[in-house]
């Protein structure tokens, strides 16, 4: 969203139309431009004893990934607080091999 500048001066963000004047930055999606986001999510690991050795292995080989594009007008998430809007979402289970070198 356009992050409004407080009273058109300095480094503070304004809240409310009465003190918003100007923009510090815009964190939203600009028209016609491709915006990329990348997330690297490490699988949780665990240490286990195997053949007398302590090894580290994934706690699970399948990871349920959910990506949700929210429009959150203001404040903490909650239907009665700010009426957030789920714009789009994606879900996939990402699996990694259980054997290999």
């Amino acid at each position, binding site marked *: 969203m356009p992050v409004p500048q407080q009273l058109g001066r300095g480094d503070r963000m304004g809240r409310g139309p009465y003190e918003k*004047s100007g*923009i510090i930055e815009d964190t939203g999606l*600009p*028209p016609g431009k491709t915006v990329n986001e990348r997330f*690297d999510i490490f699988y949780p690991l665990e240490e286990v004893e195997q053949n007398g050795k302590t090894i580290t292995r994934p706690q699970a080989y399948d990871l349920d990934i959910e990506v949700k*594009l929210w*429009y959150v007008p203001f404040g903490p998430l909650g239907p009665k607080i700010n009426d957030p809007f789920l714009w789009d979402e994606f879900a996939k289970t990402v699996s990694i091999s259980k054997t290999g070198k």
Partner: protein
Amino acid sequence: MKLRVTGTLALLAATALLAGTACADGKVGIGRQETIAAKSGKAKTLAELAKMYDSSSCIECHQDKYDEAQKSIHSRSIYGTGRTALTIMTTIENGLMEEPYSGVKSPKDVKVEHLMGCAKCHLPQLADAEDSVAQELVTTLYDWKAALKKKDKVAAKKAEDTLKSVNIGCLICHNRNAITHKWQDGYAKAGVVYGSKDGDHPSDKFPKMAVSPIMGEAIQCGQCHGMGPNMELDEPTQCCTSYGSYLWAYKSEIGQKNCQDCHMKESKLGHNIQSYRDPGMAKAAVDFKTEAFGYYWRDGAQIRPKAVVKVEMINRAGHSIPDG
């Protein structure tokens, strides 16, 4: 001697021209006295203001357009989803009452000019009302909030309905705000509905129709949908900035569509002007592509499996998303 006489006449002519453009209220512009506001006189109550721009006579022939418009948040521009009403109250308490030179110590001090920071867009016709209307509006807002707190649904609904009685109805876009360049195109006249045609209009209250030079242009919407700080106010406010984004980020670099193309025509929503709340609009506005895969990441002896999620988003709207 001859030159001196000519000079004097020219000065007199200029004086006459200036006198001719001034109205009784001291404002310049020819035809200002033909507007609805000038003919009606300033509204003294909310009911009078509602009546001044009453669009109910439009229903007789334009029921479909009226029904569409009723679904749009323009039809409850002061109330909004409730958030707008609350934000106006916040503006009174955290804005006006804290500003040392506003002249507002309590909500009872609020006048029309104080509210125009919000009303410029949420109720532009408030400019055509006396301060008593500003007070009635403020009182109704506080009555509504108090009723909600007491869980008095009847009183809350009554106040809510009063707040909704003044809004961006047909006559705001099709008359009051149908002309932006008033010295070039003239002031919007009482009795005339502005749209895409000239001619007679079968209505007692509005017997004429005329072409609005901007009805199909983005500037019609841009009057309210914002460029940034409203510098014309003594205390600038800022709310919507989508028209600024449209001009400088979309129109200058991306495309040539206007607001009406997407929000009214291609969406097939007509006067039910919507944005992301309409599933079709939301889907059309943002391309959202995602892929995810996993692999064993290795750094020296350390092996850590990870999932990679790549998201690509393209905003297909004619302005930044979100706005506000």
